[in-house]
C-alpha cells in the first residue's frame, strides 16, 4: 500500500521534462566537451550565442571516456565534442546520434613544472627514475596518444600517476607536484610553463569528433557551426590544428 502511495506521489514528477523551454523563449542547449576544450569552448559558444540569441548554452567538461559513459547512462545532451576517435567505439549502439564531423586536431607536448625542477632537457630524460611524470589514463584519448608516442619511441617512462583527464594532468604539473606531464599543445598556450616538444618522428595527432544527440536541432546547428571557417579560426588561434 505504501508503495502505491509513493508511486502515485512520484508520478507527477515523472511528467516534468528537464531540460526544456522554461518560458517558451530561452532554449537550453547542453554540450559535453572534452577537457582539452576548456579554454576555447567559451569563445565558440559566444559566437554561437550571437547567432541564436534565443538559446542558452551550458557546457560541461570531462575526459572523453567519461563523456561516453555519461551518454550511455542516458545523459540529456544536445551535442558532444570528444578529443579522440577511440572512445566512439564504446558508445551504445542504441543511441540516436547525428553524423560525426571532425572539427579539430591536436598534438601532444610535455609540460614541465615551473622552474623545471626535474631538470628535463631532452625527450630521453623522461625515462629517468628520479623524475615524476604524470600522463592521462589509458581510456582517455590523451593517454592513448601518449602510450602510442612512448611505444613508437621505445621509451619506458616511470609514470607517477594516471590522471582522469588532461586538465587533471596539467594541474599536477602546474601546481608543482609533478615534474612533467604529457598534455596537448593547446593546454599550455595560456600558461607560462616550460615545455618540451615531442620528437617529430614519434608525434601523434588526435582528431576531435563532434556529433549531435537525439536529433537535437540546436545540437546539429552547433556541430555544423564548429566546422565553419569562423570556428576554425578560433580553434587555430587556440593552438588546434585543422582537420
Amino acid at each position, binding site marked *: *500500500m*505504501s*508503495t502505491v*502511495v*509513493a508511486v502515485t506521489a512520484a508520478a507527477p514528477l515523472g511528467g516534468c521534462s528537464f531540460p526544456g523551454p522554461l518560458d517558451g523563449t530561452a532554449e537550453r542547449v547542453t554540450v559535453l566537451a572534452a577537457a582539452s576544450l576548456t579554454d576555447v569552448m567559451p569563445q565558440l559558444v559566444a559566437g554561437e550565442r550571437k547567432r541564436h540569441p534565443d538559446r542558452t548554452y551550458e557546457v560541461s567538461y570531462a*575526459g572523453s*571516456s*567519461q563523456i*561516453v*559513459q555519461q551518454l550511455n547512462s542516458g545523459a540529456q545532451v544536445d551535442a558532444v565534442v570528444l578529443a579522440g576517435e577511440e572512445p566512439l567505439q*564504446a558508445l551504445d549502439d542504441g543511441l540516436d546520434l547525428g553524423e560525426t564531423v571532425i572539427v579539430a586536431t591536436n598534438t601532444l607536448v610535455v609540460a614541465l613544472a615551473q622552474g623545471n*625542477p626535474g631538470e628535463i632537457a631532452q625527450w630521453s630524460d623522461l625515462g629517468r627514475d628520479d623524475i*615524476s611524470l*604524470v600522463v592521462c*589514463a*589509458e*581510456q*582517455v584519448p590523451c593517454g592513448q596518444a601518449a602510450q602510442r608516442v612512448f611505444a613508437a619511441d621505445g621509451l619506458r617512462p616511470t*609514470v*607517477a*600517476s*594516471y*590522471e*582522469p583527464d588532461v586538465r587533471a594532468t596539467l594541474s*599536477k604539473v602546474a*601546481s*608543482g*607536484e*609533478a615534474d612533467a606531464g604529457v598534455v596537448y599543445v593547446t593546454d599550455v598556450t595560456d600558461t607560462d610553463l616550460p615545455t618540451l616538444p615531442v620528437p617529430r618522428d614519434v608525434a601523434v595527432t588526435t582528431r576531435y569528433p563532434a556529433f549531435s544527440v537525439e536529433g537535437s536541432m540546436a545540437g546539429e546547428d552547433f556541430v555544423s557551426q564548429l566546422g565553419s571557417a569562423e570556428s576554425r579560426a578560433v580553434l587555430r588561434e587556440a593552438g588546434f590544428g585543422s582537420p
Partner: protein
Amino acid sequence: MPSRRTAGHWPILVPAGLAIGILLLPLLALLLRVDWAGLPADITTPLARQALALSALTTSVTLLVVVLLGTPLAWMLARGAHPALPWLRALVTVPLVLPPVVGGVALLAAWGRGGIVGAVLDETLGITIPFTTVAVIVAETFVALPFYVISVEGSMRGLDRRLDGIAATLGASPLRTFTQVVIPLVAPGMAAGAALAWARALGEFGATITFAGNFPGRTQTVPLGVFTALEQDPDAAVALSVVMLGVCVVVLGALRSRWRP
C-alpha cells in the same frame, strides 16, 4: 484492510518506506547488474587484484595508526578538563564533514612538494609523499581518524570515573589503569569505532586521487580502481563494486548489535 492499530502509523511508515527504498534500491540494482558467471574472472583481472591487495594493505596500516593515535586522543577528549578541549573536539571532527576532495587539496598544501612540511621534506631529505603508497595511508588516516576518535570518546565518557580512583588506591599507575582497566571496558566501543574507521578508509576516493594520484598497485585503491574500470571495463567495475558491497555488509552486519558504543 489496515487494522485500527496500524492505521495511525502511516505518517511514520510512508516516509520510512521511501527512505528504505532510496537506500536499498541502488544496492539491489547493483546485485542485479552483476554478471555472476563472469564474476570470478572479473575480480581476478590485474586491475582488480592489484586494487584489492593495495586496499587491504593500506586500510590495515591505517587502522593500526588510527587505533594507536586515536585512542589516547579520545581519552584526552573524554577526561580532560581544559577549556580548549571542546574546540579541539570540534576541530578534530572537521575532516569528517570536509568534502574528501577538499581534504586532498589540504593534504597537498601540507605534504605536497610545495607544502608547508612537504617542501622541507623534499629539500632536506629528498622525500616526496604524493604519488606513493604512504600518501594513500596519509589520506585514509586523515578521513578515518575522526570517525574512530568520536566513536571511542563516546564510550569512554560513559565510564564510571570512580574506577580510576579505585585502581589508583590499589597502586596502579595511570598507564596501568589505562591499559588494564579502561581499555578492556571500552573494547567494544573501540571495535565498533575501528570498524567504522576502517570502512571509511576503504571507501576513501576524493582525497586519495587528489593527493596520492592513481597508479595501479601503488596508489590505485579499490574505489579508484572502480572509477578507472568504469571507463575501461564496466563489468570489472560492477564486479569490484559488488565485492566492496559484500565486505561492507559483512563488517556492518557483524557490528549490528554494537552500533551504539
